[in-house]
Protein backbone atom coordinates (compact mmCIF):
# COMPACT_ATOMS: atom_id res chain seq x y z
CA UNK A 1 0.00 0.00 0.00
CA UNK A 2 2.82 2.36 0.85
CA UNK A 3 4.47 1.55 -2.47
CA UNK A 4 1.27 2.28 -4.37
CA UNK A 5 0.86 5.64 -2.70
CA UNK A 6 4.39 6.75 -3.41
CA UNK A 7 4.03 5.71 -7.03
CA UNK A 8 0.81 7.64 -7.38
CA UNK A 9 2.73 10.68 -6.19
CA UNK A 10 5.45 10.05 -8.73
CA UNK A 11 2.88 9.79 -11.52
CA UNK A 12 1.30 13.12 -10.61
CA UNK A 13 4.66 14.82 -10.60
CA UNK A 14 5.27 13.73 -14.15
CA UNK A 15 2.10 15.12 -15.63
CA UNK A 16 3.51 18.59 -16.20
CA UNK A 17 6.31 17.32 -18.42
CA UNK A 18 4.40 16.52 -21.56
CA UNK A 19 1.71 14.10 -22.66
CA UNK A 20 4.15 11.38 -23.66
CA UNK A 21 5.57 11.47 -20.19
CA UNK A 22 2.11 11.50 -18.70
CA UNK A 23 1.20 8.39 -20.64
CA UNK A 24 4.47 6.68 -19.91
CA UNK A 25 3.97 7.66 -16.31
CA UNK A 26 0.43 6.29 -16.43
CA UNK A 27 1.69 2.99 -17.75
CA UNK A 28 4.23 2.88 -14.97
CA UNK A 29 1.55 3.89 -12.52
CA UNK A 30 -0.78 1.16 -13.69
CA UNK A 31 2.01 -1.35 -13.50
CA UNK A 32 3.01 -0.03 -10.12
CA UNK A 33 -0.52 -0.18 -8.84
CA UNK A 34 -0.89 -3.75 -10.06
CA UNK A 35 2.38 -4.61 -8.39
CA UNK A 36 1.23 -2.91 -5.24
CA UNK A 37 -1.72 -5.27 -5.21
CA UNK A 38 0.71 -8.06 -4.43
CA UNK A 39 0.92 -6.41 -1.02
CA UNK A 40 3.17 -8.00 1.49
CA UNK A 41 3.07 -11.46 -0.07
CA UNK A 42 5.74 -10.54 -2.59
CA UNK A 43 8.61 -8.20 -2.02
CA UNK A 44 8.25 -6.43 -5.35
CA UNK A 45 8.58 -2.96 -3.87
CA UNK A 46 12.06 -2.37 -5.27
CA UNK A 47 10.99 -3.35 -8.77
CA UNK A 48 7.95 -1.09 -8.59
CA UNK A 49 9.92 1.91 -7.44
CA UNK A 50 12.40 1.26 -10.22
CA UNK A 51 9.56 1.05 -12.72
CA UNK A 52 8.20 4.38 -11.59
CA UNK A 53 11.66 5.87 -11.98
CA UNK A 54 11.48 5.14 -15.70
CA UNK A 55 8.77 7.77 -16.07
CA UNK A 56 10.94 10.27 -14.23
CA UNK A 57 13.88 9.41 -16.50
CA UNK A 58 11.75 10.03 -19.54
CA UNK A 59 10.72 13.39 -18.17
CA UNK A 60 14.35 14.28 -17.70
CA UNK A 61 15.19 13.22 -21.24
CA UNK A 62 12.40 15.33 -22.64
CA UNK A 63 13.56 18.30 -20.62
CA UNK A 64 17.07 17.78 -21.95
CA UNK A 65 15.78 17.83 -25.51
CA UNK A 66 14.32 21.29 -25.15
CA UNK A 67 16.19 24.25 -26.40
CA UNK A 68 16.68 27.27 -24.18
CA UNK A 69 13.58 29.38 -24.32
CA UNK A 70 11.27 26.57 -25.26
CA UNK A 71 7.91 26.67 -23.58
CA UNK A 72 5.59 23.88 -22.69
CA UNK A 73 3.22 22.78 -25.43
CA UNK A 74 0.32 23.36 -23.13
CA UNK A 75 1.28 27.04 -23.16
CA UNK A 76 0.84 27.22 -26.92
CA UNK A 77 4.40 27.05 -28.19
CA UNK A 78 5.69 23.73 -29.51
CA UNK A 79 9.43 23.36 -29.93
CA UNK A 80 10.70 20.69 -32.28
CA UNK A 81 11.69 18.05 -29.78
CA UNK A 82 8.54 18.55 -27.85
CA UNK A 83 6.37 18.27 -30.93
CA UNK A 84 8.27 15.11 -31.74
CA UNK A 85 7.50 13.52 -28.43
CA UNK A 86 3.93 14.75 -28.43
CA UNK A 87 3.35 13.16 -31.82
CA UNK A 88 4.48 9.90 -30.27
CA UNK A 89 2.10 10.39 -27.42
CA UNK A 90 -0.74 10.80 -29.85
CA UNK A 91 0.09 7.47 -31.43
CA UNK A 92 1.16 9.06 -34.68
CA UNK A 93 3.21 6.63 -36.69
CA UNK A 94 6.48 8.17 -37.77
CA UNK A 95 6.50 9.24 -41.30
CA UNK A 96 9.62 10.25 -43.18
CA UNK A 97 7.60 12.75 -45.23
CA UNK A 98 6.82 15.21 -42.43
CA UNK A 99 9.54 14.31 -39.97
CA UNK A 100 11.05 17.22 -38.20
CA UNK A 101 14.82 17.06 -37.81
CA UNK A 102 15.94 15.69 -34.49
CA UNK A 103 17.35 18.14 -31.92
CA UNK A 104 21.06 18.15 -31.15
CA UNK A 105 20.45 16.39 -27.82
CA UNK A 106 18.68 13.48 -29.48
CA UNK A 107 21.74 11.20 -29.74
CA UNK A 108 22.45 11.80 -26.07
CA UNK A 109 18.85 10.92 -25.17
CA UNK A 110 19.05 7.81 -27.34
CA UNK A 111 22.27 6.82 -25.59
CA UNK A 112 20.68 7.38 -22.21
CA UNK A 113 17.73 5.23 -23.21
CA UNK A 114 20.17 2.57 -24.36
CA UNK A 115 21.71 2.68 -20.91
CA UNK A 116 18.37 1.53 -19.52
CA UNK A 117 18.79 -1.92 -21.10
CA UNK A 118 20.58 -3.42 -18.08
CA UNK A 119 17.96 -1.85 -15.87
CA UNK A 120 15.21 -3.66 -17.72
CA UNK A 121 17.16 -6.89 -17.69
CA UNK A 122 17.68 -6.46 -13.97
CA UNK A 123 14.04 -5.67 -13.24
CA UNK A 124 12.93 -8.57 -15.38
CA UNK A 125 15.31 -10.89 -13.55
CA UNK A 126 14.19 -9.61 -10.16
CA UNK A 127 10.53 -10.14 -10.95
CA UNK A 128 11.18 -13.61 -12.32
CA UNK A 129 13.17 -14.32 -9.20
CA UNK A 130 10.15 -13.28 -7.13
CA UNK A 131 7.95 -15.68 -9.07
CA UNK A 132 10.50 -18.44 -8.61
CA UNK A 133 10.98 -17.73 -4.92
CA UNK A 134 7.27 -17.64 -4.15
CA UNK A 135 6.82 -20.81 -6.19
CA UNK A 136 9.61 -22.57 -4.30
CA UNK A 137 8.27 -21.28 -1.00
CA UNK A 138 4.77 -22.49 -1.85
CA UNK A 139 6.07 -25.93 -2.80
CA UNK A 140 8.12 -25.97 0.41
CA UNK A 141 5.03 -25.04 2.42
CA UNK A 142 3.05 -27.77 0.69
CA UNK A 143 5.72 -30.33 1.42
CA UNK A 144 5.83 -29.26 5.06
CA UNK A 145 2.06 -29.44 5.19
CA UNK A 146 2.12 -32.89 3.69
CA UNK A 147 4.68 -33.97 6.30
CA UNK A 148 2.60 -32.39 9.04
CA UNK A 149 -0.48 -34.06 7.69
CA UNK A 150 1.31 -37.40 7.63
CA UNK A 151 2.45 -36.90 11.21
CA UNK A 152 -1.09 -36.03 12.27
CA UNK A 153 -2.46 -39.14 10.60
CA UNK A 154 0.28 -41.29 12.17
CA UNK A 155 -0.26 -39.69 15.58
CA UNK A 156 -3.98 -40.23 15.30
CA UNK A 157 -3.46 -43.88 14.39
CA UNK A 158 -1.07 -44.31 17.33
CA UNK A 159 -3.52 -42.63 19.69
CA UNK A 160 -6.35 -44.81 18.45
CA UNK A 161 -4.19 -47.93 18.85
CA UNK A 162 -3.15 -46.81 22.32
CA UNK A 163 -6.76 -46.14 23.19
CA UNK A 164 -7.81 -49.58 22.00
CA UNK A 165 -4.96 -51.20 23.89
CA UNK A 166 -5.81 -49.23 27.04
CA UNK A 167 -9.46 -50.19 26.78
CA UNK A 168 -8.54 -53.80 26.21
CA UNK A 169 -6.17 -53.85 29.19
CA UNK A 170 -8.75 -52.10 31.36
CA UNK A 171 -11.42 -54.52 30.25
CA UNK A 172 -9.10 -57.44 30.93
CA UNK A 173 -8.18 -55.94 34.30
CA UNK A 174 -11.83 -55.48 35.18
CA UNK A 175 -12.64 -58.95 34.04
CA UNK A 176 -9.75 -60.43 36.06
CA UNK A 177 -10.73 -58.33 39.02
CA UNK A 178 -14.31 -59.54 38.85
CA UNK A 179 -13.11 -63.11 38.49
CA UNK A 180 -10.84 -62.79 41.54
CA UNK A 181 -13.63 -61.23 43.58
CA UNK A 182 -15.99 -64.01 42.56
CA UNK A 183 -13.39 -66.68 43.38
CA UNK A 184 -12.72 -65.22 46.80
CA UNK A 185 -16.40 -64.87 47.57
CA UNK A 186 -17.00 -68.46 46.49
CA UNK A 187 -14.08 -69.58 48.63
CA UNK A 188 -15.43 -67.62 51.58
CA UNK A 189 -18.88 -69.20 51.22
CA UNK A 190 -17.44 -72.68 50.79
CA UNK A 191 -15.07 -72.14 53.70
CA UNK A 192 -17.87 -70.96 55.90
CA UNK A 193 -19.94 -74.02 55.01
CA UNK A 194 -16.94 -76.26 55.63
CA UNK A 195 -16.34 -74.73 59.03
CA UNK A 196 -19.99 -75.22 60.01
CA UNK A 197 -19.82 -78.84 58.85
CA UNK A 198 -16.56 -79.36 60.73
CA UNK A 199 -18.09 -78.00 63.89
CA UNK A 200 -21.03 -80.39 63.58
CA UNK A 201 -18.67 -83.23 62.90
CA UNK A 202 -16.45 -82.38 65.83
CA UNK A 203 -19.52 -82.11 68.08
CA UNK A 204 -20.40 -85.66 67.09
CA UNK A 205 -16.82 -86.79 67.77
CA UNK A 206 -17.00 -85.25 71.24
CA UNK A 207 -20.36 -86.93 71.83
CA UNK A 208 -18.84 -90.24 70.79
CA UNK A 209 -15.91 -89.60 73.13
CA UNK A 210 -18.35 -88.92 75.95
CA UNK A 211 -20.07 -92.20 75.18
CA UNK A 212 -16.60 -93.85 75.29
CA UNK A 213 -16.22 -92.46 78.84
CA UNK A 214 -19.42 -94.20 79.85
CA UNK A 215 -18.12 -97.37 78.28
CA UNK A 216 -14.80 -97.16 80.11
CA UNK A 217 -16.65 -96.41 83.33
CA UNK A 218 -18.65 -99.63 82.82
CA UNK A 219 -15.43 -101.49 82.09
CA UNK A 220 -13.94 -100.05 85.28
CA UNK A 221 -16.99 -101.23 87.27
CA UNK A 222 -16.71 -104.69 85.68
CA UNK A 223 -13.01 -104.77 86.57
CA UNK A 224 -13.81 -103.76 90.17
CA UNK A 225 -16.55 -106.42 90.40
CA UNK A 226 -14.18 -108.99 88.90
CA UNK A 227 -11.52 -108.06 91.47
CA UNK A 228 -14.05 -108.59 94.32
CA UNK A 229 -15.16 -111.79 92.70
CA UNK A 230 -11.54 -113.01 92.52
CA UNK A 231 -11.04 -112.15 96.22
CA UNK A 232 -14.14 -114.13 97.15
CA UNK A 233 -12.92 -116.99 94.97
CA UNK A 234 -9.56 -116.98 96.74
CA UNK A 235 -11.27 -117.13 100.15
CA UNK A 236 -13.46 -120.02 99.07
CA UNK A 237 -10.37 -121.80 97.65
CA UNK A 238 -8.63 -121.49 101.04
CA UNK A 239 -11.62 -123.08 102.67
CA UNK A 240 -11.57 -125.97 100.34
CA UNK A 241 -8.02 -126.81 101.35
CA UNK A 242 -6.07 -129.10 99.03
CA UNK A 243 -9.06 -129.53 96.78
CA UNK A 244 -9.24 -125.72 96.20
CA UNK A 245 -5.54 -125.31 95.30
CA UNK A 246 -6.22 -125.20 91.52
CA UNK A 247 -9.20 -122.93 91.95
CA UNK A 248 -7.00 -120.66 94.08
CA UNK A 249 -4.56 -120.23 91.21
CA UNK A 250 -7.40 -119.34 88.76
CA UNK A 251 -8.83 -116.84 91.25
CA UNK A 252 -5.40 -115.24 91.55
CA UNK A 253 -5.06 -114.97 87.76
CA UNK A 254 -8.57 -113.44 87.52
CA UNK A 255 -7.60 -110.88 90.12
CA UNK A 256 -4.43 -109.92 88.24
CA UNK A 257 -6.44 -109.67 85.01
CA UNK A 258 -9.03 -107.39 86.62
CA UNK A 259 -6.26 -105.10 87.93
CA UNK A 260 -4.71 -104.88 84.43
CA UNK A 261 -8.10 -104.21 82.98
CA UNK A 262 -8.74 -101.35 85.41
CA UNK A 263 -5.31 -99.87 84.61
CA UNK A 264 -6.09 -100.04 80.85
CA UNK A 265 -9.44 -98.33 81.40
CA UNK A 266 -7.70 -95.63 83.38
CA UNK A 267 -5.24 -95.05 80.52
CA UNK A 268 -8.06 -94.94 77.97
CA UNK A 269 -9.92 -92.37 80.06
CA UNK A 270 -6.83 -90.21 80.27
CA UNK A 271 -6.27 -90.39 76.48
CA UNK A 272 -9.91 -89.62 75.69
CA UNK A 273 -9.91 -86.65 78.07
CA UNK A 274 -6.69 -85.31 76.50
CA UNK A 275 -8.05 -85.64 72.94
CA UNK A 276 -11.32 -84.03 73.93
CA UNK A 277 -9.44 -81.19 75.54
CA UNK A 278 -7.31 -80.64 72.42
CA UNK A 279 -10.38 -80.67 70.15
CA UNK A 280 -12.30 -78.26 72.31
CA UNK A 281 -9.42 -75.88 72.88
CA UNK A 282 -7.99 -75.91 69.31
CA UNK A 283 -10.90 -76.36 66.97
CA UNK A 284 -13.92 -75.21 68.92
CA UNK A 285 -12.41 -72.64 71.25
CA UNK A 286 -13.00 -68.83 71.31
CA UNK A 287 -9.50 -68.21 70.00
CA UNK A 288 -10.25 -70.26 66.92
CA UNK A 289 -13.46 -68.34 66.34
CA UNK A 290 -11.60 -65.07 66.69
CA UNK A 291 -8.96 -66.17 64.24
CA UNK A 292 -11.57 -67.19 61.71
CA UNK A 293 -13.35 -63.87 62.18
CA UNK A 294 -10.09 -62.00 61.63
CA UNK A 295 -9.46 -64.05 58.51
CA UNK A 296 -12.93 -63.22 57.19
CA UNK A 297 -12.34 -59.55 57.87
CA UNK A 298 -9.04 -59.60 56.02
CA UNK A 299 -10.68 -61.25 53.05
CA UNK A 300 -13.40 -58.60 53.12
CA UNK A 301 -10.69 -55.94 53.08
CA UNK A 302 -9.11 -57.60 50.06
CA UNK A 303 -12.48 -57.65 48.37
CA UNK A 304 -13.00 -53.97 49.12
CA UNK A 305 -9.57 -53.20 47.70
CA UNK A 306 -10.43 -55.14 44.57
CA UNK A 307 -13.69 -53.20 44.27
CA UNK A 308 -11.70 -49.97 44.53
CA UNK A 309 -9.36 -51.22 41.81
CA UNK A 310 -12.36 -51.99 39.62
CA UNK A 311 -13.69 -48.48 40.14
CA UNK A 312 -10.26 -47.04 39.36
CA UNK A 313 -10.18 -49.04 36.14
CA UNK A 314 -13.56 -47.61 35.17
CA UNK A 315 -12.43 -44.07 36.06
CA UNK A 316 -9.22 -44.51 34.04
CA UNK A 317 -11.20 -45.79 31.06
CA UNK A 318 -13.62 -42.86 31.29
CA UNK A 319 -10.75 -40.37 31.58
CA UNK A 320 -8.97 -42.00 28.66
CA UNK A 321 -12.14 -41.81 26.58
CA UNK A 322 -12.52 -38.11 27.33
CA UNK A 323 -8.87 -37.47 26.52
CA UNK A 324 -9.17 -39.37 23.26
CA UNK A 325 -12.29 -37.42 22.29
CA UNK A 326 -10.44 -34.15 22.96
CA UNK A 327 -7.42 -35.35 20.96
CA UNK A 328 -9.68 -36.42 18.11
CA UNK A 329 -11.25 -32.96 18.10
CA UNK A 330 -7.79 -31.34 18.10
CA UNK A 331 -6.63 -33.60 15.27
CA UNK A 332 -9.76 -32.82 13.29
CA UNK A 333 -9.21 -29.06 13.77
CA UNK A 334 -5.57 -29.29 12.67
CA UNK A 335 -6.48 -31.48 9.69
CA UNK A 336 -9.16 -28.95 8.74
CA UNK A 337 -6.60 -26.12 8.91
CA UNK A 338 -4.15 -28.10 6.82
CA UNK A 339 -6.85 -28.82 4.27
CA UNK A 340 -7.80 -25.16 4.20
CA UNK A 341 -4.16 -24.19 3.63
CA UNK A 342 -3.99 -26.54 0.65
CA UNK A 343 -6.73 -24.42 -0.86
CA UNK A 344 -5.28 -21.07 0.17
CA UNK A 345 -1.90 -21.84 -1.37
CA UNK A 346 -3.58 -21.13 -4.72
CA UNK A 347 -2.85 -17.53 -3.80
CA UNK A 348 0.70 -18.05 -5.02
CA UNK A 349 -0.56 -18.86 -8.50
CA UNK A 350 -2.76 -15.76 -8.51
CA UNK A 351 0.24 -13.61 -7.58
CA UNK A 352 2.47 -15.39 -10.07
CA UNK A 353 0.16 -14.55 -12.93
CA UNK A 354 -0.07 -10.92 -11.83
CA UNK A 355 3.71 -10.61 -11.67
CA UNK A 356 4.07 -12.29 -15.05
CA UNK A 357 1.72 -9.67 -16.49
CA UNK A 358 4.04 -7.01 -15.09
CA UNK A 359 7.10 -8.71 -16.57
CA UNK A 360 5.34 -8.55 -19.92
CA UNK A 361 4.47 -4.88 -19.31
CA UNK A 362 8.11 -4.09 -18.62
CA UNK A 363 9.15 -5.85 -21.80
CA UNK A 364 6.65 -3.74 -23.72
CA UNK A 365 7.90 -0.59 -22.06
CA UNK A 366 11.44 -1.45 -22.99
CA UNK A 367 10.35 -1.99 -26.56
CA UNK A 368 8.68 1.42 -26.58
CA UNK A 369 11.81 3.08 -25.24
CA UNK A 370 13.89 1.32 -27.86
CA UNK A 371 11.56 2.75 -30.48
CA UNK A 372 11.93 6.21 -28.96
CA UNK A 373 15.69 5.89 -29.07
CA UNK A 374 15.69 4.73 -32.65
CA UNK A 375 13.39 7.56 -33.68
CA UNK A 376 15.64 10.09 -31.97
CA UNK A 377 18.62 8.97 -34.00
CA UNK A 378 16.63 9.25 -37.18
CA UNK A 379 15.56 5.71 -37.98
CA UNK A 380 12.67 6.51 -40.27
CA UNK A 381 11.23 3.01 -40.30
CA UNK A 382 10.39 2.94 -36.64
CA UNK A 383 6.78 2.47 -35.58
CA UNK A 384 6.18 4.26 -32.35
CA UNK A 385 3.82 2.75 -29.85
CA UNK A 386 1.95 5.24 -27.77
CA UNK A 387 1.47 5.03 -24.01
CA UNK A 388 -2.17 4.22 -24.48
CA UNK A 389 -1.27 1.19 -26.55
CA UNK A 390 1.14 0.20 -23.81
CA UNK A 391 -1.64 0.38 -21.25
CA UNK A 392 -3.95 -1.57 -23.52
CA UNK A 393 -1.33 -4.25 -23.91
CA UNK A 394 -0.90 -4.44 -20.16
CA UNK A 395 -4.66 -4.58 -19.80
CA UNK A 396 -4.88 -7.43 -22.29
CA UNK A 397 -2.60 -9.49 -20.09
CA UNK A 398 -4.82 -9.22 -17.05
CA UNK A 399 -6.01 -12.57 -15.82
CA UNK A 400 -8.13 -11.56 -12.88
CA UNK A 401 -10.65 -9.01 -11.75
CA UNK A 402 -8.27 -7.90 -9.02
CA UNK A 403 -5.93 -6.61 -11.72
CA UNK A 404 -8.76 -4.92 -13.60
CA UNK A 405 -10.08 -3.24 -10.48
CA UNK A 406 -6.59 -2.06 -9.51
CA UNK A 407 -6.18 -0.72 -13.04
CA UNK A 408 -9.41 1.25 -12.85
CA UNK A 409 -8.59 2.66 -9.42
CA UNK A 410 -5.05 3.67 -10.50
CA UNK A 411 -6.31 5.53 -13.57
CA UNK A 412 -9.28 7.07 -11.77
CA UNK A 413 -11.72 5.17 -13.92
CA UNK A 414 -15.05 3.83 -12.76
CA UNK A 415 -14.47 0.40 -11.36
CA UNK A 416 -16.79 -2.17 -12.85
CA UNK A 417 -18.18 -4.32 -10.15
CA UNK A 418 -17.72 -8.00 -10.70
CA UNK A 419 -20.95 -9.77 -9.97
CA UNK A 420 -19.74 -13.05 -11.40
CA UNK A 421 -19.84 -15.91 -8.93
CA UNK A 422 -16.59 -17.36 -7.63
CA UNK A 423 -18.12 -20.79 -8.16
CA UNK A 424 -20.57 -21.34 -10.98
CA UNK A 425 -21.90 -24.67 -12.16
CA UNK A 426 -23.42 -24.57 -15.62
Amino acid sequence: MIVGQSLAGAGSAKRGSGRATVLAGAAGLAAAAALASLMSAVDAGTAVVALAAIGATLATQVALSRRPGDVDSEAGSAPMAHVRIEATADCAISDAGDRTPAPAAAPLIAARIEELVPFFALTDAQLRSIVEQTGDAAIGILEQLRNLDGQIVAMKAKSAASHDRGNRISAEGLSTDHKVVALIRNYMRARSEEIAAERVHLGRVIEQMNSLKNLTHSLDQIGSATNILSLNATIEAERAGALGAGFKVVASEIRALSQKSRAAVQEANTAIAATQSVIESTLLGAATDQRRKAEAEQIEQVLSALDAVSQSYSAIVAEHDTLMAEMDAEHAAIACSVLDTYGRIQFQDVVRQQVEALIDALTSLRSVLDSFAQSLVGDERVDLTCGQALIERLQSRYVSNVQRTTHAVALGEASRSDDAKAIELF
Partner: protein
Amino acid sequence: MKPVLLVDDSPTILMSMSVLLSKAGYPNEQAPNAEAALEKVRGGLAPGLVITDYHMPGMHGVELIQELRKLPPTRFTPMLVLTTESQQDKRDAARKAGATGWLVKPVEADKLLQVLKQVLPN
Protein backbone atom coordinates in the same frame (compact mmCIF):
# COMPACT_ATOMS: atom_id res chain seq x y z
CA MET B 1 -12.89 -44.83 -8.93
CA LYS B 2 -11.76 -43.01 -12.05
CA PRO B 3 -9.00 -40.46 -11.46
CA VAL B 4 -9.40 -36.70 -11.56
CA LEU B 5 -7.21 -35.17 -14.27
CA LEU B 6 -5.61 -31.92 -13.08
CA VAL B 7 -4.28 -29.57 -15.77
CA ASP B 8 -2.34 -26.48 -14.70
CA ASP B 9 0.99 -24.90 -15.61
CA SER B 10 1.56 -24.00 -11.96
CA PRO B 11 3.43 -26.70 -9.98
CA THR B 12 1.97 -25.16 -6.82
CA ILE B 13 -1.59 -25.69 -8.02
CA LEU B 14 -0.86 -29.19 -9.27
CA MET B 15 0.73 -30.19 -5.98
CA SER B 16 -1.81 -28.54 -3.68
CA MET B 17 -4.77 -29.87 -5.63
CA SER B 18 -3.26 -33.31 -5.87
CA VAL B 19 -2.72 -33.53 -2.11
CA LEU B 20 -6.14 -32.05 -1.43
CA LEU B 21 -7.88 -34.55 -3.69
CA SER B 22 -5.84 -37.47 -2.39
CA LYS B 23 -6.73 -36.56 1.17
CA ALA B 24 -10.40 -36.46 0.19
CA GLY B 25 -10.05 -39.91 -1.38
CA TYR B 26 -9.93 -38.94 -5.05
CA PRO B 27 -7.13 -40.54 -7.09
CA ASN B 28 -5.68 -38.06 -9.55
CA GLU B 29 -3.39 -37.55 -12.52
CA GLN B 30 -1.57 -34.33 -13.35
CA ALA B 31 -0.65 -32.58 -16.59
CA PRO B 32 1.38 -29.33 -16.77
CA ASN B 33 -0.41 -28.14 -19.92
CA ALA B 34 -3.31 -28.89 -22.25
CA GLU B 35 -1.20 -30.81 -24.74
CA ALA B 36 0.09 -33.17 -22.05
CA ALA B 37 -3.48 -33.69 -20.83
CA LEU B 38 -4.66 -34.62 -24.32
CA GLU B 39 -1.74 -36.98 -24.67
CA LYS B 40 -2.73 -38.75 -21.46
CA VAL B 41 -6.32 -39.19 -22.59
CA ARG B 42 -5.26 -40.35 -26.03
CA GLY B 43 -2.90 -42.73 -24.26
CA GLY B 44 -5.82 -44.44 -22.55
CA LEU B 45 -6.55 -42.35 -19.47
CA ALA B 46 -10.29 -42.13 -18.81
CA PRO B 47 -10.69 -39.53 -16.07
CA GLY B 48 -13.82 -39.23 -13.98
CA LEU B 49 -13.39 -35.47 -13.85
CA VAL B 50 -11.15 -32.87 -15.50
CA ILE B 51 -10.08 -29.72 -13.63
CA THR B 52 -8.19 -27.34 -15.88
CA ASP B 53 -6.66 -23.89 -15.60
CA TYR B 54 -7.72 -21.32 -18.19
CA HIS B 55 -4.51 -19.39 -18.84
CA MET B 56 -1.74 -21.77 -19.81
CA PRO B 57 1.10 -21.60 -22.29
CA GLY B 58 -0.08 -23.07 -25.60
CA MET B 59 -3.67 -24.19 -25.64
CA HIS B 60 -5.88 -22.54 -23.03
CA GLY B 61 -8.34 -24.34 -20.82
CA VAL B 62 -11.47 -23.84 -22.91
CA GLU B 63 -9.68 -25.03 -26.05
CA LEU B 64 -8.62 -28.10 -24.09
CA ILE B 65 -12.23 -28.78 -23.14
CA GLN B 66 -13.25 -28.48 -26.79
CA GLU B 67 -10.62 -31.02 -27.76
CA LEU B 68 -11.42 -33.38 -24.91
CA ARG B 69 -15.10 -33.38 -25.89
CA LYS B 70 -14.06 -34.85 -29.23
CA LEU B 71 -12.37 -37.84 -27.57
CA PRO B 72 -14.51 -40.86 -26.58
CA PRO B 73 -13.10 -41.28 -23.04
CA THR B 74 -13.96 -37.68 -22.11
CA ARG B 75 -17.01 -37.00 -24.27
CA PHE B 76 -19.32 -36.96 -21.26
CA THR B 77 -16.80 -36.37 -18.47
CA PRO B 78 -17.50 -33.44 -16.14
CA MET B 79 -14.97 -30.65 -16.67
CA LEU B 80 -14.29 -27.70 -14.40
CA VAL B 81 -12.27 -24.59 -15.16
CA LEU B 82 -10.21 -23.47 -12.15
CA THR B 83 -8.72 -20.09 -12.93
CA THR B 84 -7.93 -16.60 -11.70
CA GLU B 85 -10.05 -15.36 -14.59
CA SER B 86 -13.66 -14.42 -13.97
CA GLN B 87 -14.75 -12.56 -17.11
CA GLN B 88 -18.22 -13.43 -18.26
CA ASP B 89 -17.34 -13.79 -21.96
CA LYS B 90 -14.76 -16.43 -21.07
CA ARG B 91 -17.27 -18.23 -18.86
CA ASP B 92 -19.77 -18.20 -21.70
CA ALA B 93 -17.15 -19.62 -24.05
CA ALA B 94 -16.40 -22.35 -21.53
CA ARG B 95 -20.07 -23.20 -21.20
CA LYS B 96 -20.40 -23.43 -24.97
CA ALA B 97 -17.32 -25.64 -25.14
CA GLY B 98 -18.95 -28.07 -22.74
CA ALA B 99 -17.50 -27.08 -19.38
CA THR B 100 -19.43 -28.21 -16.32
CA GLY B 101 -18.46 -25.28 -14.12
CA TRP B 102 -16.22 -22.31 -13.49
CA LEU B 103 -14.24 -21.76 -10.30
CA VAL B 104 -12.25 -18.62 -9.55
CA LYS B 105 -8.95 -19.07 -7.68
CA PRO B 106 -8.40 -19.18 -4.83
CA VAL B 107 -11.21 -21.60 -4.00
CA GLU B 108 -11.56 -22.73 -0.41
CA ALA B 109 -10.83 -26.42 0.04
CA ASP B 110 -14.19 -27.36 1.55
CA LYS B 111 -16.10 -25.52 -1.19
CA LEU B 112 -14.03 -27.21 -3.86
CA LEU B 113 -14.77 -30.62 -2.36
CA GLN B 114 -18.47 -29.76 -2.23
CA VAL B 115 -18.36 -28.98 -5.94
CA LEU B 116 -16.62 -32.28 -6.62
CA LYS B 117 -19.38 -34.14 -4.81
CA GLN B 118 -21.94 -32.30 -6.92
CA VAL B 119 -20.37 -32.98 -10.30
CA LEU B 120 -18.99 -36.45 -9.78
CA PRO B 121 -21.32 -39.41 -10.22
CA ASN B 122 -21.73 -41.50 -7.07
